[in-house]
């Protein structure tokens, strides 16, 4: 370029521009997938699993490290004489999350060899009980768990915790 001492490299520059355009596309894709809920709080993230007649869980599949998450558990009240209802969470799951609170408060908690059982009392004649478990993930990456009812109905949970 004349007598201009410059380390210009147009081939590299054009390559860089192509990468730049690719990067913009990646950024657009990231924003789109985030709006769809790939990183939580969107249609892709929302999971409603289970059978409304026995046990059903409504939760976010994609969560972020350090932010709280909720499992909304629907338990249809299958009549027991004392109105008791219970729900179990497995140990591997509980090892990787912190249970901040459960609404309503369980009337009792029992330690089992493979997890924890939470007991609730349902007023006579009531239909489906809704229990919300508030959790805080303690690690990153995939997180699996299992919710069980006393009568054997179980649901496998799969979550992914983003850093």
């Amino acid at each position: 370029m004349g007598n201009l001492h410059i380390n210009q490299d147009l081939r590299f520059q054009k390559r860089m521009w192509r990468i730049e355009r690719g990067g913009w596309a990646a950024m657009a894709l990231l924003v789109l997938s985030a709006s769809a809920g790939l990183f939580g709080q969107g249609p892709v993230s929302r999971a409603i699993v289970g059978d409304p007649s026995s046990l059903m869980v409504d939760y976010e599949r994609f969560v972020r490290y350090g932010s709280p998450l909720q499992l909304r558990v629907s338990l249809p009240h299958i009549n027991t004489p004392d109105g008791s209802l219970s729900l179990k969470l497995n140990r591997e799951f509980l090892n990787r999350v912190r249970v901040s609170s459960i609404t309503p408060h369980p009337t009792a908690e029992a330690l089992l060899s493979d997890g924890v059982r939470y007991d609730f009392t349902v007023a006579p004649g009531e239909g489906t009980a809704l229990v919300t478990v508030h959790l805080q993930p303690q690690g990153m990456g995939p997180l699996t768990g299992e919710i069980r009812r006393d009568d054997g109905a179980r649901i496998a949970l799969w979550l992914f915790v983003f850093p």
Partner: protein
Amino acid sequence: MDAITRATLIYVALLVLFRIAGRRTLMQMTSFDFILLLIVSEATQNAMLGDDYSVTNGLLVIVTLIGLDILFSHVKRWSPGAEKWLDGLPMVVVDNGKPLKDLMIRARIDERDVLSAAREKQGLERMDQIKYAVLEASGGISIIPKSS
């Protein structure tokens, strides 16, 4: 450990993002660019510090960031290839008063940007008074006037 990982991740992510965004993105420093810069720093702050507001953590993050900066400056000195990728290269956009339109469009600058730099830095009035205009790796435009 956590502080160092966080700071490194943010440093590398910002490096890649700003490289992809192109050199002109924050180089103009209009008042809005300045605000954008402040917002970006606010947004990265929590991700870097986490929920640990101790002096130790803050210092670890700062030391990591400065350390990385020193490391990268050495890497760039040792390897011109790395410098090319990390900082980019300068490029001539006006050659003997003739704007190289194709390159300018792709670099997202136009003749007005060049003329404004020419006025500011050299007091020039017209394109034909410019011998070379170079878009520097930093994103600024430098002007070499024709000798009269």
